[in-house]
């Protein structure tokens, strides 16, 4: 049994943790953010701790529903519900992103709640990323990153030097490398870690200061050297999708006779895929990494690339099947699911798409489907 893994799993189960409170006590500002496009390096270089908002621990969306409607994504409703319950009171600011329509409206709703109900914090910023990867978009994005740095500097009275940014890039790259190391181990026939556990690791790492993350990951890497999971008779699967934080859900999938050895989840392995270049203009390097490598269906002109990278993952990790995860009412992943389904027919890999509401139950039906899918994959293999 691995101690560090237990520590990390505990971290994943909660929204506030001692590392964050400690950082706050030391006077570091905590900045919440919503989406994988928000550059953590820049926030970090301004002396702050980026913290990804999660719905974990939320039971209902009662208050969130006073703003959002029943056809809005449950993740967003849960997170905003938590905000209205002052569960994010420890944040010094929130950065929103025009990721999807549901999430970007949180910028509006949060401001409204700030004005009408005094919901903190005061610093609410909209960070805008283009939807295409053209040169024009790149220039625009570069500009946005510079503006973002300026805003942080001004509002928090911080000095965001090139050197600081270079350091931040280095340490985030270190975190990425460590995560990649773990992923590398998952390629083994007997991986050291379950997919559910790995998701816990990945989610926890976005809720603590990066320095602590690196320490924990280093220990975890050592501890996992000798851990092996018996993969005998289990299918190797890859998960793809947007935000995913329900660890029990992956446990359920794995309990049907599989190990999730790889993922392309927004809150998962995709963040660690590619490092930021450590030479040249650091802002440009960050821009390049975030515009071209986040690999999200909100980018309209790069499905081929996304599909190719998924195909590569499936080959590298020798997976038997793909499971895609989407939340109800998500246009972006709905469309992506359809495209992946076509690709699965073209390339001949089995694929199952699951739709769920965040913390929404319905396990019985889901289990039947997953189990039948695994039985089907085995039938096809034999």
């Amino acid at each position, binding site marked *: 049994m691995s101690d560090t893994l237990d520590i990390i799993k505990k971290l994943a189960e909660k929204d506030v943790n001692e590392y964050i409170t400690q950082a706050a006590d030391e006077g570091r500002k905590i900045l919440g953010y919503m989406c994988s496009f928000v550059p953590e390096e820049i926030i970090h270089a301004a002396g702050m701790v980026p913290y990804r908002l999660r719905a974990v621990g939320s*039971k*209902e969306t*009662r*208050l969130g*529903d*006073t703003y959002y*409607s*029943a*056809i809005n994504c449950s993740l967003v409703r849960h997170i905003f519900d938590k905000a209205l319950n002052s569960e994010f009171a420890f944040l010094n600011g929130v950065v929103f992103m025009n990721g999807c329509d549901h999430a970007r409206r949180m910028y509006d709703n949060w401001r409204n709640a700030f004005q009408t109900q005094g919901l903190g914090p005061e610093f609410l910023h909209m960070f805008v990323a283009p939807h295409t990867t053209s040169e024009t978009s790149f220039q625009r994005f570069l500009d946005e990153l510079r503006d973002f740095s300026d805003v942080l500097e001004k509002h928090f009275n911080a000095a965001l030097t090139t050197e600081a940014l270079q350091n931040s890039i280095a340490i985030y790259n270190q975190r990425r490398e460590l995560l990649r190391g773990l992923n590398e181990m998952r390629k083994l026939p007997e991986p050291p870690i379950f997919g559910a556990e790995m998701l816990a690791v990945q989610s926890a790492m976005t809720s603590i200061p990066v320095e602590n993350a690196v320490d924990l990951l280093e220990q975890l890497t050592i501890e996992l050297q000798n851990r092996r999971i018996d993969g005998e008779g289990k299918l190797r699967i890859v998960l793809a999708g947007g935000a995913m934080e329900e660890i029990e859900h992956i446990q359920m999938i794995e309990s049907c006779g599989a190990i999730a050895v790889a993922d392309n989840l927004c809150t998962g392995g995709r963040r660690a895929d590619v490092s930021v270049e450590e030479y040249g203009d650091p802002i440009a390097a960050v821009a390049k990494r975030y515009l071209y490598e986040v690999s999200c269906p909100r980018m309209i002109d790069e499905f081929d690339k996304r599909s190719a990278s998924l195909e590569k993952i499936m080959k590298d990790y020798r997976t038997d099947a793909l499971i895609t995860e989407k939340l*109800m009412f998500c246009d972006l992943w709905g469309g992506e699911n359809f495209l992946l389904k076509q690709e699965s027919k073209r390339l001949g890999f089995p694929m199952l798409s699951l739709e769920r*509401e965040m*913390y*929404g*139950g*319905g*396990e*019985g*039906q889901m289990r039947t489907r997953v189990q039948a899918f695994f039985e089907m994959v085995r039938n096809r293999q034999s």
Partner: protein
Amino acid sequence: MISAGIDVGTRFVKACIVKDGEVMGWAGQDVSRDIDRVIAGVYKKALEQAGIKKRQVKKLVSTGYGAKLVKKTSFTMSSDRCAAKGAFALDPTIRTVLDCGGLFLTVTAIDEKGVFERALSNDKCAAGSGKFLEMSAQAIEIPFSSISQYAELSREPYVISSNCAVFAESEVITQVNHGRNNTDIIAGVLHSIAGRAATLFERIQAQDNVALGGGLAAVPAFADRFEQMTERKTVSLPMPPQNFGAFGAALMAQQGDPFKEGSRRK
């Protein structure tokens, strides 16, 4: 003057006879295929209870989802307004009426003169309705009248979050199969319906005092949960809440031109 109100809801038909603002009699019955018979029957029962002949009724007003099915009415009126009218007549301190019916939750805000201000209904999905409670209770074999008793016994309500009433029901069944107590489940169902009612309540930015109307309000455990969630007390009125709509309609009938009253147009 004697007037009558008939509320043809999604689940029940209710009738109420009023004489000069006083209730004389009322009756209610499940809707069924032969709706005309049901309406006639309910009306007749209410008249009998009031001891009044049909021809003595000067004016008849209908309300509710199927208001148009009632024949020979003076006019029809929307149910949110009738429920508010009824509740306000019983207690003029009331500013908000939450009508929890078979398929719709409606919240109505009124001003200090009882004039309608605004109303809101729940989102189109049935998981926050009386019907859902009935279906769940049926699925786990709890008689409707004992729902409150069962819910009180629950220590750990299992909250069902599915948006769909039918799927929520199947989740209920799955949970039963997993050995969960039916007390926890019914408490969870009540919790989720009350949650939706509370959201609606928040949305309209309701003022005190609050009255609960509709068939669901007759379930004490529901009202309790609702109060807990919103941290407000609701006023209990001297009439079964399911009857507010029909009562309000009958009161409307007593007035001259109902559309002028409370008109907000400048």
